[in-house]
């Protein structure tokens, strides 16, 4: 049953695509509406809910004190994880991270990390002994496509607004007291496209992803860099298509960065 419905819906997406249209009436290069809320989790050092159309994601950051790695005595660390909760879509399953979840987490992670937005040296407390170790995890609460961009926005906003815990004289964390922030050097954001029936669609929905041949994401920064790329799914892109998407990614990235600036 579900399969049949799904097949009908994706074939509809394809039919629309052939005419350069989208089922939800958007232009091919139109982003869905984005809303951003922060601070819902008091136990987190930072938390954000992003909705992107019907897609809804929550991200949260926990920060703890850890030992530095032997070869980076004066650097803290950040890990990013992603879960597509079975709460969020009938197709999502619980259990060990799927290849999709691993890719999602790693692409969002790289977009941030490789842009050198985070200065890991500033996460050092005492060289060789104590550093900040951050875990940012984001979870799909409702899945309707483009978890990459929603996750990327949620992660960036969470870092922008995160507070570092206050330490007592013995260097232990004082619960629910804070002292300083994680200042980002730049603002990297992913922008994702799907190729559906030969057309490039910005910000694909779940159905558009199902109907798509290929996916492409680029992370752009506010100071004009590309900081990550990822091509996915079994199809291909021409170099011209990639070039078009990079330009568009800069444009869209700047727009969203403006919106993010309003978030306190």
């Amino acid at each position: 049953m579900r399969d049949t419905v799904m097949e009908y819906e994706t074939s509809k997406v394809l039919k629309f695509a052939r005419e350069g249209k989208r089922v939800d009436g958007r232009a091919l290069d139109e982003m869905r509406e984005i809303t951003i809320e922060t601070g819902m989790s008091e136990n987190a050092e930072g938390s954000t809910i992003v909705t992107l159309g019907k897609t809804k994601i929550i991200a949260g950051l926990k920060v703890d004190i850890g030992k530095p790695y032997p070869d980076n005595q004066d650097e803290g660390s950040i890990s990013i994880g992603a879960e597509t909760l079975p709460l969020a879509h009938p197709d999502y399953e619980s259990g060990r991270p799927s290849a999709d979840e691993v890719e999602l987490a790693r692409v969002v992670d790289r977009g941030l990390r490789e842009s050198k937005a985070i200065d890991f040296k500033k996460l050092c407390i005492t060289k060789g002994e104590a550093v900040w170790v951050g875990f940012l995890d984001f979870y799909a609460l409702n899945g309707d496509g483009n978890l990459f961009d929603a996750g990327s926005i949620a992660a960036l906003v969470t870092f922008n607004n995160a507070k570092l815990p206050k330490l007592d004289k013995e260097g232990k964390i004082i619960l629910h007291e804070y002292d300083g922030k994680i200042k980002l050097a730049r603002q990297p954001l992913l922008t994702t496209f799907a190729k559906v029936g030969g057309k490039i669609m910005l910000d694909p929905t779940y159905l558009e992803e199902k109907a798509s041949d290929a996916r492409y994401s680029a992370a752009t920064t506010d100071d004009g860099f590309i900081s990550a790329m990822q091509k996915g799914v079994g199809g291909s892109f021409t170099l011209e298509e990639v070039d078009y998407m990079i330009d568009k990614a800069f444009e869209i990235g700047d727009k969203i960065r403006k919106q993010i600036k309003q978030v306190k």
Partner: protein
Amino acid sequence: MDRKIDYKKTKKRLDGRKMDETRPLSIKTGVIENADGSAYLEWGQNKIYAAVYGPREVLPKHSADPLRSVIKVEYRMTSFSVPQRKRPGPNRRDQEISKVLGEALSRAVFVEQFPNTEIGVYVEVVDANAGSRVACLTAASVALADAGMPMRDMVAATGVGKAYGELVIDLNKDEEDAPDAVDIPIAILPNSEEIVLLQMDGLLTRKEWDAIAKLGIKGCKQVYEIQKKALVEKFELSEAKGKSQVAKEKTVKKKTVKKTVKKVKK
């Protein structure tokens, strides 16, 4: 926490509540578009999403029950919902809570009507401060009603117990850490007062239990009123929309839900 706190003297609780006062509780339905039913609940600092999918096919098939639908609850916490980061994957506590929540909900739903199927109930704690399991059960029950599931009754739940020398309802984290703390998650079908969840930790006399049990049932009934309100709001909202596109698409489901709500009310 100062170990000399004495509620018998202070007469009110650390957060200013009366002994039989529940923390602020609000519930909203229909928060997860993809789900057949869903709820978002805030209870004190606790923040919880609940979603219901089903009844749906069970895989692998041999794990299905030919006489009833199996309610499968997954209780999870985000890594950032607690002061100390929670590792990914369910721990033993999560597994036990999932089990007892599923058992509690099984009594409320007419599971016999959907043999060989599964009803997936997913609850995600995004912020926690004592009492997350009863908060989840409360949210899950509303999500089941939101899904139009035929129900014998709602499941209303609360924490109840002892802290700093007094019997109290709905313990928060500071009270759970009291030296004499006893925390009792309890859930009932509010109309029949059947007990469907009951767990207890700590030291309690027989006499204290009697008072606590009454307090617990009282607490559950307070919770029930808020559950009903959430469902009525949803119903009124969908009524108000009249013949709008959305309402039309969901017409069958709404009707079923209406029935459930009425049932719950009578």
